[in-house]
């Protein structure tokens, strides 16, 4: 993030930077082993205590009621070292945003008020899809006690470790979808083992099936797409901030390595082809920072086209992050591909995060539709 105007934001920036560097970075390789290694509860608990999960949540609901710049600052700093935690925060924030968009403060309060640990605070959500794009949503039926859900939800992020989830669901016979809050500990819920995925290993997803599971309708029936768009417009820039953080981490590690590594009798940073690659990485990074900051500003100033700014920024920054992290490995050669360094993880994470909120080509087409 380029702008840290308020003292509060500067403090958040500093706290996230220090946490990321001192607490998250040393255990990155170990955390990435999940599900074949332990889950990093103790580090997430620390982040939870530092209010990194609460930045966008209104004060009335126990949050700190900050602007979009705050969550972008947090996610960017965290993702420099390990974007798995960024993914957990983004997923939980997405559920809050859906509930806020649906004016369902009551449900949100129920979820957050008694959450004394991050595990109770987390809510699962299918972060990597746009429900409008898929034909395989769960089906809800209304009965005398409310609603019951049946069907399967693929790749439910945090599905294996959260108590609750927000699930996009279609009412039987209806075209539009709605969101439902479900308790993942209810009978009738079946969860798969954690899904092995490209990146974000410690932000695990699971395939979850529902057999007549009780669900609470969020907002109005059939208004799911409206809530999704409200949430995705705001948080697409937060996802872009994660990509920007990954780019920062990748560039720094590459530049540091090139200053030390000697081949042909000279430091490789003095090889003009390596310099050219690093120069391109630096330019892409600075551009990404500017783009994310501008989009945040547009959103905070409530400029008329802020949603378009956010979406365009996100698509562009994600693409740049994929290219930059590819080069981040390349300039380091063989060691860049090994798990002893952070580059290979950043490469995987950048591509993984690009899939947030649905297919990239469809995001591009929808962006065009929104401006013409």
């Amino acid at each position, binding site marked *: 993030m380029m702008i840290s105007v308020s003292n509060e934001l500067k403090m958040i920036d500093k706290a996230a930077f220090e946490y990321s560097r001192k607490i998250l970075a040393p255990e990155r390789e170990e955390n990435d082993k999940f599900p074949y290694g332990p889950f990093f509860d103790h580090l997430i608990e620390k982040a939870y205590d530092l209010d990194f999960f609460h930045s966008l949540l209104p004060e009335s609901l126990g949050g700190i009621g900050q602007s979009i710049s705050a969550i972008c600052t947090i996610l960017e700093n965290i993702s420099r070292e390990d974007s798995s935690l960024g993914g957990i925060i983004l997923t939980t924030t997405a559920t809050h945003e859906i509930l806020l968009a649906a004016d369902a403060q009551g449900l949100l309060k129920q979820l957050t008020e008694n959450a004394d640990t991050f595990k109770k605070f987390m809510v699962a959500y299918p972060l990597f899809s746009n429900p409008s794009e898929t034909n395989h949503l769960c089906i809800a039926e209304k009965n005398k006690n409310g609603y019951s859900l049946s069907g399967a939800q693929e790749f439910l992020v945090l599905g294996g470790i959260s108590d609750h989830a927000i699930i996009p669901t279609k009412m039987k016979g209806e075209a539009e979808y709605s969101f439902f809050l479900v308790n993942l500990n209810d009978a009738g819920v079946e969860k798969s083992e954690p899904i092995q995925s*490209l*990146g974000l290993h410690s932000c695990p997803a699971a395939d979850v099936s529902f057999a007549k599971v009780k669900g609470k309708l969020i907002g109005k029936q059939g208004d799911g797409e409206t809530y999704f768009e409200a949430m995705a417009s705001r948080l697409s820039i937060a996802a872009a901030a994660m990509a920007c953080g990954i780019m920062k981490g990748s560039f720094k590690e590459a530049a540091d390595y090139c200053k030390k590594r000697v081949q042909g009798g000279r430091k490789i940073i003095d090889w003009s082809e390596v310099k050219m690659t690093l120069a391109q990485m630096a330019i892409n990074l600075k551009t990404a920072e500017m783009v994310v900051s501008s989009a945040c500003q547009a959103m905070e100033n409530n400029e008329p086209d802020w949603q378009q700014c956010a979406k365009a920024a996100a698509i562009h920054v994600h693409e740049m992050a994929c290219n930059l992290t590819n080069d981040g490995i390349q300039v380091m050669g063989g060691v860049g591909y090994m798990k002893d360094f952070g580059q290979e993880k950043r490469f995987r994470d950048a591509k993984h995060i690009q899939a947030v909120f649905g297919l990239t080509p469809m995001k591009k087409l929808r962006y065009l539709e929104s401006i013409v």
Partner: protein
Amino acid sequence: MQGVVVFQSQDNTCNIEGLKNHYNAADGAYIDAICFDNINFKYEGIMISRAQIKSLIKREPGFEDITCSLRATVKQPKGILKESKKVMAIARKFTDEVVRPMSLELDKKMHEDPEYLPWEYIQKVNEWGLYTMFIPKIFGGQGYSLSCLFYLLEEIGTACLAMSNLIGVHYLGYASLISSWNMKMIDKISRDVARGEKTGEPCIISLAITEPNAGTDSQNIELMDTGNLACHAQKTDNGYIINGTKIFISSGHLSTWHIVHAYTDLKKGSENTIMFAVKTGSEGFSFGRKEKKMGQKACVASELIFNNCFVPDENVCIDNRGLRNRSKGIWHSNEQILAYIWGASRIGVSSFGAGAARGAYETALKFASETEINGQLLINHEWCQCMLADMYINAASARIAYTEGNYANGLYGLWKILNLKPLYYLMKYTHVKFLDKFYMWLWNKPVMTLIFRKLCLDFQKDAETARVDGWGSLAKVLCTDAGVKNCMMAIEIMGQAGIRHDRRAEKILRDAKLLQIYEGTNQINRINVFKRLIAPPYPQTEIFTAGNI
């Protein structure tokens, strides 16, 4: 006759009966169009002399440099076409029955336990005879042409690059061994591999060049003397003592023989490179760590440690005693040997790249043909059709590029001799027992090594070395970039499904990324393309010097 005739004049002269016109265009200019009205004419053809043809096709880019395939259609034995088809069919059967059913589980297992070694797969490869398939019959192998190897690697690579590499890297070691033209050693190790197939105890070969502080340094002759080479070879009475470490050695822990490069003078490696064959179990030789990689997990990357490891003279593939009398001198001969190795092995990596490009394309195509987005099958979205077309183009271009490089090797490189028609057909149609009886004793005669070194080192022209090495690099860059690009596109088409391990696309991406790094990063290979294919007519060019870096 009415209309427009378009033709091109190569010798600046053309005669058209009836018109009686004589055109003299400026050198190199084309006459684009001539309009005729109601004129009868007979086009007599372009007059061009032999000398002109010779001179014009030599002009950069030279005909020979850019049309390896065209030349190969005449020079290459016809039997290779039939063999290639058979090899591709075997590869597809092996992929269906062995590779695809194992690949995801094996990758998962390696993720869970990076110390695991995939012996069950190695056994399967051995049982199917794939480790002897491309070893010439005169050395106890099955005698398929090495030209066919790359179609096999591509096919298997579409399902799993690591499992393809577990075959490819064996032939990388073998190709390095061949490049020493030490016929006794080639025969000895080849027969060990063949014996391993018969006994059910696989005998694989690895190549060990990369060192902890010398990756690029150890692969490029220009950088050796200013680099950080550390694997030292000390001459003793009956051999050498090696000290040092090699890293990132593909399949190291699984191999029986290791073709190792070490240096008698670490400050002057370019003229003091020794190629050894070290057997697993040799005193002073041990395995170190296994690297924890992002992808190609099944193909273990090993650390090889040499601690006062004695290698007898009989296991020296080539040293300065074998290079001292070469017509090109020691430095250029070492450069030539590296060019033989990289020219061949980079075509192998290129075929992996083509496999990745195809694997990603096929995965995305299958997904698109089964998945509806916005109520319509993805495959019917125009944007998706164009993305899939781009992916198809990438995969097809990759195959064309490595095939061209393959032809370069067959015409001018490592398997030129084996592809000579008399030798090819002699081996193809002669029974192994007969070959063994009449030829086996020959390979132990030092004169055979002398003859082959004369033919392959002294008689290879510089332009041929450049062509083989240049095409190796060109194909490697093109194919591996195409592979990674297609993986990126596949994941974009598949979205959430693309990032799941069980849908394969993410694994192909993780595996493919390594292709842009090993056998020289693609950046180094671009410099090699410049050196070998672009720079020759420009003597003022500097490559890998203090000035140009």
